[in-house]
């Protein structure tokens, strides 16, 4: 029994060590689980709150006022007088986008000609990709539609496009562009400064997004997107001719 003592002592010590090792392992495992749960909670919380915030601040109000002649939520403004059944040209542009200005310079006259002669129905969808100036310009475009001058106002804006991201298209510039095309009166100025159609501008942005428009200019002829090499006067004419058949 006295000789058994050291023996059992060693065994006890080993067991004790094993117990402690196991306890330590359990504790480590527990702590690891807590860290993983905390990490998952961080991700869920950050992503959840973030998405909630974005959904909220990009909310589109279907009841927002729309410019004259815009029949549906998020629809564009039609210019010219097209015969019934004529092909529809849907043009998605941003008044602040330089590529759109280039497109207007090269293809714009052709589009206007098609619209004025009634060979096609031309619909402008003013998108607002490039900051608040895009939103202000698109809103003013809606105001000009009320005055029946959507087409000329559209052309005047592109003719005097300010540099990108320079905070252009301020209210005075927009009202002056209106005066240039013969829009007078308080109503237009109030519409521009009050952002009357900013809700509609968001509707148009959402509608464009739902249509998969990710760049400007984007042209659809009778619902079919123009191929990238078709962004020329001849390309548009060919697409309209093809749609007429």
């Amino acid at each position, binding site marked *: 029994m006295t000789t058994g003592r050291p023996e*059992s002592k060693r065994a006890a010590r080993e067991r004790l060590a094993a117990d402690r090792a196991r306890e330590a392992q359990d504790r480590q495992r527990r702590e690891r689980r807590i860290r993983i749960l905390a990490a998952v909670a961080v*991700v869920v919380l950050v992503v959840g709150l*973030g998405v909630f915030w974005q959904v909220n601040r990009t909310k589109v109000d279907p009841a927002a006022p729309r410019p004259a002649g815009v029949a549906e939520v998020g629809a564009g403004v039609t210019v010219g007088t097209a015969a019934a059944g004529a092909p529809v040209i849907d043009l998605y542009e941003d008044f602040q986008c330089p590529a759109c200005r280039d497109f207007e310079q090269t293809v714009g006259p052709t589009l206007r000609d098609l619209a004025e002669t009634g060979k096609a129905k031309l619909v402008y969808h003013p998108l607002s*990709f490039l900051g608040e100036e895009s939103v202000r310009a698109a809103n003013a475009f809606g105001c000009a539609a009320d005055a029946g001058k959507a087409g000329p106002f559209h052309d005047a804006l592109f003719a005097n496009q300010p540099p990108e991201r320079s905070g252009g298209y301020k209210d005075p510039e927009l009202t002056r562009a209106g005066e240039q095309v013969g829009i007078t009166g308080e109503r237009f100025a109030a519409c521009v400064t009050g952002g009357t159609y900013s809700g509609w501008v968001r509707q148009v942005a959402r509608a464009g*997004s739902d249509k998969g428009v990710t*760049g400007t200019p984007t042209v659809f002829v009778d619902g079919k997107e123009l191929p*990238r090499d078709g962004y020329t006067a001849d390309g548009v004419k060919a697409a309209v001719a093809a749609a007429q058949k």
Partner: protein
Amino acid sequence: MIGPAERISSAYAVDRRRAVLPWVSTGARLALAGVFFVSGGLKVADPGQSVRAVQAYELLPPEVARIAGYALPFAEIALALLLLLGLATRLAAAASALLLLAFIGGVASAWARGLSIDCGCFGGGGAVSEGETRYLQEILRDIGFLALAGWLVVFPASRLAIDPGRSHHDEPAYEPADEPRDEPVHEPAHEQRSEPAAP
């Protein structure tokens, strides 16, 4: 003569490795966290742009792309947070690696399908003209970030972290070193209780 010297130098090498590796992992953590903070932060301000960047890949239906466009920047920020804190590093690194693989796959598929888009990796995104695509650079850059994430999956233990400084494989070597010292004090009491049937 040669034996002990070799042993000392190899022990020294192991020690140095143990000292340096966690710091390398700390560097990888902070670098990847920085990348994700910047890429996520640049996208948060303009949710519409973020959605367009996702849509431009033409891989998801519009509604799904919208939610993905809202969620991805925050997922990046959340991962950046975990990496910065060193919380569940291996898990965060594995998630980062998966995300980066998805990004690389997306860019590669856009390239293969002949789309002309900007990857929208650090804000921006959407259609660009044909000569302006930079798919190869974008993929190589993401592979660099993937290497950081891969390192952290293999060596998650790092300094300046909430996670323990050593991975659990190393830990047993740590604990016995300081514990036996106070053990004998408690030992007799335990021993008597646990060994009554010994005789």
